[in-house]
């Protein structure tokens, strides 16, 4: 087990290196002038030249890359070309808001998607199954931006019961100062006992939460259903029934544990997908998260910021896959 994890970790580091190499080269190859960005629109030619030397852009690409890696190992992701702030600090401010969404969608996938799939498999070809399948196919195939805009139209414009975007209402933002403990606004306000902020944060979380969670919920429901249906035809399920075990135990324990492999893989992969999906959702709901941050960075070709976000999502993918592999290795048959 230890060598297995070590091997996977090593592989993950290789993947990360590849990702860094590719994004680094790509952002440098794109025709743009980072030095001009750095000094601003009204700079003179001399100022730009000085900035180029200051940023090390006059050196060959491989030296720049080496320098970047060196800084990276020290935890320095460089400075944003636009705000002149360390990228790491900016990521730290934006990541919690994003994680709040990602976590919510994962919880949704596990606590709504999984039971939905089990129900669907148990009542195969009955109306419960049909509804579940209709829902999950819809959730997977409707584009995220469409769902987001549609929800805004219904709940903000027509019904007027939920806010259109952002994490908090303007007046609440001005009135209260919530200290950062976990970085998750809903949790922080709950910990500090500020229920007005909590309620406001929660109402703001509903629409982007649903928008982002629908895809993983649908995917997990569908995957669980098909994996479970396959397992339910196995001999040992029939045998378990013949020993007089209650259907509840046969379904939720005997069958589910066997079908968890594909479900776990899908859950972890969908977390990665959700992370990318937040780029869209956060733009729609002007959610102050990393997606919104990278969207502006891409438009202004702020390459240290782009690199920072890329490395963050690549790390997330690698870690998630590692976790998935470890969970799957809990199955005694794959244990190494």
């Amino acid at each position, binding site marked *: 087990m230890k060598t297995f994890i070590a091997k996977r970790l090593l592989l993950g580091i290789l993947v990360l290196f590849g990702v860094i190499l590719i994004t680094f080269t790509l952002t440098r190859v794109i025709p743009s002038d980072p030095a001009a960005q750095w000094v601003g629109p009204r700079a003179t030619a001399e100022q730009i030249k000085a900035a180029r030397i200051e940023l090390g852009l006059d050196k060959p690409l491989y030296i720049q890359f080496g320098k970047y890696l060196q800084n990276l190992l020290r935890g320095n992701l460089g400075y944003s070309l636009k705000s002149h702030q360390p990228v790491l600090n900016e990521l730290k401010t934006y990541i919690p808001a994003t994680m709040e969404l990602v976590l919510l969608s994962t919880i949704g996938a596990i606590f709504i998607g999984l039971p939905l799939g089990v129900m669907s498999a148990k009542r195969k070809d009955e109306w419960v199954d049909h509804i579940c399948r209709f829902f999950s196919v819809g959730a997977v195939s409707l584009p995220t931006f469409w769902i987001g805009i549609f929800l805004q139209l219904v709940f903000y414009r027509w019904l007027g019961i939920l806010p259109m975007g952002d994490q908090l209402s303007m007046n609440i933002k001005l009135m209260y100062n919530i200290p950062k403990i976990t970085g998750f606004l809903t949790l922080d306000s709950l910990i500090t006992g500020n229920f007005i902020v909590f309620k406001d944060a929660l109402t703001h979380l509903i629409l982007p939460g649903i928008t982002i969670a629908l895809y993983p919920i649908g995917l997990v429901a569908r995957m669980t259903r098909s994996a479970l249906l396959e397992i339910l035809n*196995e*001999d*040992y399920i*029939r*045998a*378990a*029934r*013949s*020993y*007089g*075990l*209650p259907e509840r*135990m046969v379904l939720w324990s*005997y069958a589910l*544990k*066997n079908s968890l492999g594909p479900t776990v893989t899908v859950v972890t992969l969908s977390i990665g997908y959700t992370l990318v999906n937040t780029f869209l959702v956060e733009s729609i709901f002007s959610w102050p998260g990393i997606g919104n941050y990278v969207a502006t960075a891409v438009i202004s070709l702020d390459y240290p910021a782009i690199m920072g976000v890329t490395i963050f999502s690549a790390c997330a993918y690698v870690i998630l896959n590692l976790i998935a592999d470890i969970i799957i290795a809990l*199955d*005694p*048959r794959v244990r190494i």
Partner: protein
Amino acid sequence: MDNYFEIKDLKVGFKTFEGIKKVLDLEFLSICKGETFGLVGESGSGKSVLALTILGLLPIPPGIIESGQILYGGEDLLKKREEEMRKIRGKKISMIFQDPMSTLNPVFTVGEQIIRVIRNNEGINRKQAEKKALEMIELVKLPDAKNILIKYPHELSGGQRQRIIIAIALSCGAEFLIADEPTRNLDVTIQAGILKLIAELKKELKVTVLFIANNLGLVSAVCNRVGILHEGRIVETGTVKEVIKDPKHPYTVTLLKAIPANREEKIDLSRILLRRENGQETGGCRYFDRCPERSGQCSKSSPSLTPVDGSHLVACFKAFERSGINEQTAS
């Protein structure tokens, strides 16, 4: 004959796109308490379907139970609700399945699987259940029981697994055991061990066994009485001696001829290999197409199971003629 276990007019079918395909059409089957009853038939004759129907585990749909009674201790199992059947399964009637490789759940330890069944059926605490599980493993003569409990199924051999399965099946005091080809996927030496074990446990725990097999030789070695199943119908039944020594039905005769008695003898398998076309329902005897003794009457009506000699029952017009019995026709 006591009525410990009886099946009457059981008709089971499967829904297919072409309509209902009849799988079982059992006129009559009775098993006495304490005996081992062998049910022999080729693949697809409905042996396993019968086993699942008795336990109420036949998937419905696609399965349909059209009519009939399965009487166990005077009560009709087909009329029981799922809740009542669950209390019978494992506790009263238990089953050993064909393939020991796929009958144990691969992601739970053997001990966990036995303990769960014991706890669920007897409502005792974990410690007591563990003790009972150890006893059961010792009962099926597996050495080093404690160590076996923490093993996963894939760490055990086929023979060991089949012993575990027998231990689980008998762990909650079942008195009627359905053994569905329990030695099918095991090699011959292991087979002998498992058969011996079943015979010993049967004596020790006083269980009645319905032994399903596709091997007449095997059945004659372990059973008291035997029924020959052909395409869902029992065509001949009686004590092992009666059926093996004096087979009345042409199908039984063909089956017996297929067992090589000595090396020089050439076996004619052509008749065994003949298949009825498309399984059409002609209304006549189901063996008609393959029967060497068929006559015009056999294609029109189906003979019903009739005693020819004491407990020896057979369903064949020709056999009736030979035994001087008035022809009987099943409805």
